């Protein structure tokens, strides 16, 4: 494996680790949200969760295609603080998506070819999800 390929796969693995964490945290946030009293937030969290699962699968497929074993999830992740209210849960989910966007943006230049394209596609999805959680559009998300 060349150095460039190795760096590209490492970028995918780093993104995969972020997705494992995001899925865990969003699952926990969704479990604290009532679909009856907070339907919009519950829907946004469900959509985000599904999106992150799809991202995880896409990233894992690229890593496997490179002949590498995908990074495994941790047993447990730290949950954000102040998630006892709808506002707190929404803010935590938005922060998660902003962090995910920034991570993808920092990883994209390290990848090459279709790996880079995938990372940018997932970056775009993360940026779009921010709007579902109350963010305003920005010219350069993730920066």
């Amino acid at each position, binding site marked *: 494996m060349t150095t460039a390929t190795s760096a590209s796969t490492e970028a995918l693995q780093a993104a995969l680790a972020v997705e494992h964490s995001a899925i865990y945290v969003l699952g926990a946030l969704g479990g604290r949200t009532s679909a009856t009293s907070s339907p919009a937030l519950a829907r946004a969290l469900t959509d985000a969760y599904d999106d992150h699962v799809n991202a995880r699968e896409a990233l894992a497929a690229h890593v496997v295609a490179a002949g590498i074993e995908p990074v495994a999830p941790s047993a447990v992740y730290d949950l954000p603080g102040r998630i006892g209210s709808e506002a707190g849960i929404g803010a935590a989910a938005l922060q998660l998506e902003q962090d995910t*966007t920034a991570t*993808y*943006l*920092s990883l*994209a*230049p390290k990848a090459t*070819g279709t790996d*880079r*394209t995938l*990372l*940018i*596609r997932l*970056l*775009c*999805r*993360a*940026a*779009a999800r*921010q*709007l*579902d959680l109350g963010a305003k*559009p*920005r*010219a*350069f*998300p*993730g*920066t």
Partner: protein
Amino acid sequence: MTSERALRMLSRRTAVGVAVVAPLAASACSASEMLDPVKAPPPSTPPAPANPDQSVIDATVAAILGADEGAPSAFVQLHRVHIEALAPTKGVTAAPASGRWQERQLALVTTLTAAAGRAADPQLITLLASAAAGQQQLLHGRGLA
């Protein structure tokens, strides 16, 4: 500092400069040799190297300009910001536009992503990738993506 005081200081510096220069001018060396350290580059100096990513930048800006026609002002404003950040060659013209404005905005995300895939400079990759995300955000906010 008042302008009067600044002028006084400037005059004093000029006076000191003249005092330093005067003995040199009077010496065996010519004053022009001693007082002209900044020299023009020799004629053989090659021009600054061209940006290897400039063709990627210009093609992308042409695509962005081509997506302007008929688009709502929010998209056009975003295009302006992205073009300014990309710093294209002067005189880049819009790529031929076809289809509905919504389709062109969606295609622009793909164009920006593909350009980021081709670019070599990490900073340009970051800029193009983030611009693609900004475009996607605006589309998503309008229910188009």
